[in-house]
């Protein structure tokens, strides 16, 4: 349960509409104007220092942890230094756009138009990117097969070395920076490192001073709290953490500072149950009560919801609803391969029952030795219906990293950034979300290249593969231009200090300073591609029931001709689909996702790393589907693609959740070392009671044994059931559980459907 304090904090997060806040942009620009001619990494450090010295710091009435990025919670921070263009285009749209709205004052709009835009036009990261993007890669993006991300925003998608910050303290890190800078005065990165770390220490002290100032006027109880916070801040400004209060305060201010530096999505939290464990133990040993510890963790969880990330309208379609990416991982193996979980792992899951918010994005790592009670705790939280925690599988993810040359100990320490991207905390700058690749578009291009068809199904498959190969190469060129744009215009020296081995190498992570340097690109559309090719194989090549020309014509007119709908339905229902444990069609999915991955691996990036494949969509299956016409799997033009990444197409997995796991297990999941995503849907009643929970746990253990990377659960709500009643064709996969029996929803009479709908609402 939330306490009165944390209830008040939670309410304050949503008390007012989200604002656009120009403070950081103005401070950044002010500094930038004064540092013309200096090395870019030093300019970035000085800009950060200026922000940390000058932005308004706020300590709320109830805070136990200090650190705010913006004056009001959940405000949107614009980064014209990344790209001033989309912001100008959308200035008037922030309050009304379909997804992720913000309010913005007329005065701020004027400031943006008159001061910020004119300065940054021609100077931004986006300008560098466009000037250096090879023409053919620019041209290729017009096909909408891929589009390079992070060309108008910070890179993010990384985990700082938080354990070192806690155990060494900022003072020791600053001392190292000074020592190295003095030893190598010509190294710009070291100069920048000194500026950044010193500025961070001063920033922590600003909060200390603010706490002391507020304490003077506060009521006695609150004054005592503020003075305790001030003492904590005074200590962690330079020294290692002593207990949980120190550790959470230092982690949070580190995160806030890194957000000030790059204004990026997904500067994630890593394995908090591991690095917080000694401090938690110290707090318990010192006699701090369970209720106090729980409240402190609630405060920390709520803080992660104070930062949201403004995206362009286009980007918000793919990443709808502020996935700010404070991903927090518990469980998994330790460096020796034994169970790493502890009491704090369970507590960190349990606190979600109190806060019930999207951040932190909790992830549970499991392996063959994960204790039953940890599954049980996770199952209880999953059943709440928030889709939290998601579950990751060491049995495949550790080998996946080792295939990429990551050491065994580092691989066993993996965590998650953003949504589902796998990363090595504090050691990897992985450009994990640099592009998505639409394999379904490649099918369309290959089909339309031959109006009279291919001589065989094999020839069609070859043509799709060659199309994939050509565009993967062009995607890599585009990603590399973006990679270099960050190096040339937007290094992140503070983040680099906190990522091994940048200090040893004397190089910013954008210039290859990290120990591990992959670029991650997601292959999307496995399900639709497999379903489409299998339908073509059977209907066109084997049964010869449908001519190539007729198929193309139906696709081109989006099934609008006479008799087309019967054909569309036939293609949907008469040919097996990926996700039903049917080997013939699953094999096509396996073949193409593997082919994509093998092609991706052939390409190198400018940081000395290589490209690696992943497969997730977040919400991008909607816009990626918009880019595609009708497809031979019976999908309408512009309709969404399969969600998730590895999930079956919505409504097409009719054989239940065990069959879909089996289908996914046939893919080469070790190959997708950047991370993949599987959504599974349950009705609330399926998971009800101790027996339902036991089955969910068994399902998760089976998932681990099947060597699938990731899984997350949707617990189906009333709205879905109503939609299923109106559009049964879209919900053929929906299994409902009533009166002790499971049944396919669409096969029930309306009266019984109504009954289930009503009861489900009761359950929820």
């Amino acid at each position, binding site marked *: 349960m939330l306490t009165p304090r944390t209830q008040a904090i939670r309410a304050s997060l949503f008390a007012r509409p989200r604002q656009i806040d120009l403070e950081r942009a103005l401070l950044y620009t002010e500094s930038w104007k004064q540092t013309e001619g200096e090395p870019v990494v030093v300019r970035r450090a000085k800009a950060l220092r200026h922000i940390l010295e000058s932005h308004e710091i706020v300590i709320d009435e109830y805070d136990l942890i200090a650190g705010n990025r913006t004056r009001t919670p959940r405000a949107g921070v614009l980064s014209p230094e990344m790209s001033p263009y989309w912001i100008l285009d959308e200035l008037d749209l922030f309050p009304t756009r379909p997804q992720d709205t913000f309010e913005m004052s007329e005065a701020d709009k004027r400031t943006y138009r008159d001061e910020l835009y004119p300065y940054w036009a021609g100077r931004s990261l986006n300008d560098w990117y466009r000037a250096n993007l090879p023409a053919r890669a620019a041209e290729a993006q017009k096909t909408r097969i891929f589009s390079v991300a992070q060309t108008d925003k910070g890179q993010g998608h990384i985990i700082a070395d938080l354990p070192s910050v806690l155990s060494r303290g900022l003072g020791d890190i600053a001392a190292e920076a000074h020592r190295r800078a003095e030893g190598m005065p010509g190294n710009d990165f070291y100069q920048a490192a000194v500026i950044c770390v010193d500025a961070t220490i001063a920033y922590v002290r600003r909060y200390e001073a603010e706490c002391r100032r507020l304490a003077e006027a506060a009521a006695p109880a609150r004054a005592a709290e503020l003075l305790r916070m001030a003492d904590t801040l005074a200590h962690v400004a330079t020294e290692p953490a002593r207990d949980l209060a120190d550790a959470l305060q230092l982690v949070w201010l580190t995160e806030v500072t890194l957000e000030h530096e790059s204004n990026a999505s997904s500067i994630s939290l890593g394995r908090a149950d591991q690095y917080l464990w000694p401090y938690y133990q110290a707090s318990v040993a010192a006699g701090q009560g369970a209720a106090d510890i729980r409240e402190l963790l609630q405060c920390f969880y709520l803080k992660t919801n104070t930062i949201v990330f403004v995206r362009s309208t286009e980007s918000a379609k793919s990443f709808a609803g502020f996935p700010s990416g404070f991903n927090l991982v518990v469980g998994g193996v330790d460096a020796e391969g034994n169970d790493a979980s502890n009491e704090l792992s369970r507590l960190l899951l349990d606190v979600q029952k109190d806060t019930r918010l999207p951040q932190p994005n909790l992830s549970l790592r499991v392996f063959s030795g994960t204790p039953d009670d940890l599954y049980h705790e996770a199952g209880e939280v999953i059943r709440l219906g928030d889709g939290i925690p998601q579950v990751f599988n060491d049995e495949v993810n550790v080998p996946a990293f080792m295939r990429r040359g990551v050491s065994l100990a580092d691989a066993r320490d993996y965590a998650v950034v953003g949504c589902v991207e796998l990363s090595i905390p504090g050691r990897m700058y992985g450009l994990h979300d640099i592009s998505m690749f639409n394999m379904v578009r490649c099918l369309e291009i290959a089909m339309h290249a031959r109006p009279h068809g291919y001589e065989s199904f094999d020839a069609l498959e070859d043509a799709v593969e060659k199309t994939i190969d050509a565009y993967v190469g062009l995607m890599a060129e585009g990603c590399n231009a973006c990679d270099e744009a960050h190096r040339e215009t937007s290094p992140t020296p503070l983040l680099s200090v906190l990522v091994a081995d940048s200090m040893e190498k004397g190089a910013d992570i954008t210039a290859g300073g990290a120990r591990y340097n992959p670029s991650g690109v997601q292959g999307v559309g496995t399900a639709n591609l497999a379903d489409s090719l299998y339908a073509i194989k059977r209907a066109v090549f084997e049964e010869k029931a449908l001519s190539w020309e007729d198929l193309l014509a139906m696709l081109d007119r989006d099934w609008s001709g006479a008799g087309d709908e019967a054909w569309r339905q036939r293609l949907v229902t008469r040919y097996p689909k990926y996700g039903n444990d049917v080997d013939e069609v699953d094999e096509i999915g396996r073949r193409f996702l593997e082919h994509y991955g093998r092609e991706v691996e052939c390409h190198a990036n400018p940081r000395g790393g290589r490209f690696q494949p992943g497969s997730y969509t977040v919400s991008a299956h909607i816009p990626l589907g918009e880019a595609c016409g009708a497809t031979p799997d019976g999908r309408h033009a512009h309709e969404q693609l399969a969600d998730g990444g590895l999930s079956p197409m919505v409504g097409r997995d009719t054989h239940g959740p065990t*069959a879909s796991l089996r289908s996914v297990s046939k893919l080469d999941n070790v190959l997708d070392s950047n991370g993949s995503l599987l959504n599974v849907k349950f009705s609330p009643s399926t998971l009800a009671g101790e*027996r339902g929970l*036991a089955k969910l746990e068994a399902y998760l253990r089976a998932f681990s044994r099947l060597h699938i990377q990731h899984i997350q659960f949707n617990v189906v709500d009333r709205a879905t059931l109503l939609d299923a009643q109106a559009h*049964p064709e879209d919900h053929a996969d929906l*299994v409902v559980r009533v009166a002790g029996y*499971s049944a396919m929803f*669409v096969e029930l009479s309306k*009266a*019984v459907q109504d*009954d289930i709908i009503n009861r489900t609402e009761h359950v929820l």
Partner: protein
Amino acid sequence: MCSEADSAITAIVTNVQRFSLHDGGGIRTVAFLKGCPFRCPWCCNPENLSFLPEVSMNERLCIRCSPRPDGRLCERSPEECPTGAKTILGRERTVDDLVDEVGRDRVFFEESGGGVTLSGGEALAREAFATEFLARCKAAGMGTALETTLALPLTDAGALVEATDVFLVDFKIADRERSRALTGIDPDVRDANLRTILDLGAKVIGRMPIIPGYTDGRENVAACAARLIELGIRRVDVLPFHQLGEGKYDALGHAYACRGMRQLSEEDVVPIVDMLERGGISTVVSGE
């Protein structure tokens, strides 16, 4: 109907339902054999009454791909139906084929303590197939359950008991004459079989569908309970009446005696559960 002898070892299977959470413990796959010699008016699996494949037409999925003036029935064959609205229920399967299919979820069975449940229709109407199938599943390491009336003569009770981890045996109408008249089931045949398999060491769970007007009377429940006690069966699943079969009767064009009858909730069966529990029988209401 063909005889066991010349059908080798195949049976008509209507459905293999994976991730079935009922009909035995854990995550289960239920295989439904087509055909039942009995006729319970409330049957929720009417597609498994006839021993032969039959055509089902789900009007709710029909897109009227061919003209059907005056509300006439669709004249197209199931093979021509684009949506699967009209479909043939039941396909001849070999034991090998069916064991392979249910074996796909072995990982889930192992992790949940689940397994395979053979159901129907009346699976023991194909006793040789049922025994062989369950034996093969068990040999492959899967848990096995058989859902049955047990009211048919058994050819080889020993082999069946060997192959079956748990029998789920119906206790519907206790009075012999009334049972034979309404359902065709002879409880005396069942009880003789029960004594045989219990003597052979079978684990048996009783199943009591609670159907208003048919099985829910106090007298009937008491008589069933007495019989259970007498046989030494101390666990019963109580199954409140539901209408999940209604749509299937429509699709098959069969008459349905319980159309529109109210479904029962868990609360509705509380008095019956109390009665059974007082008699020393532990119950699970399959409704949670």
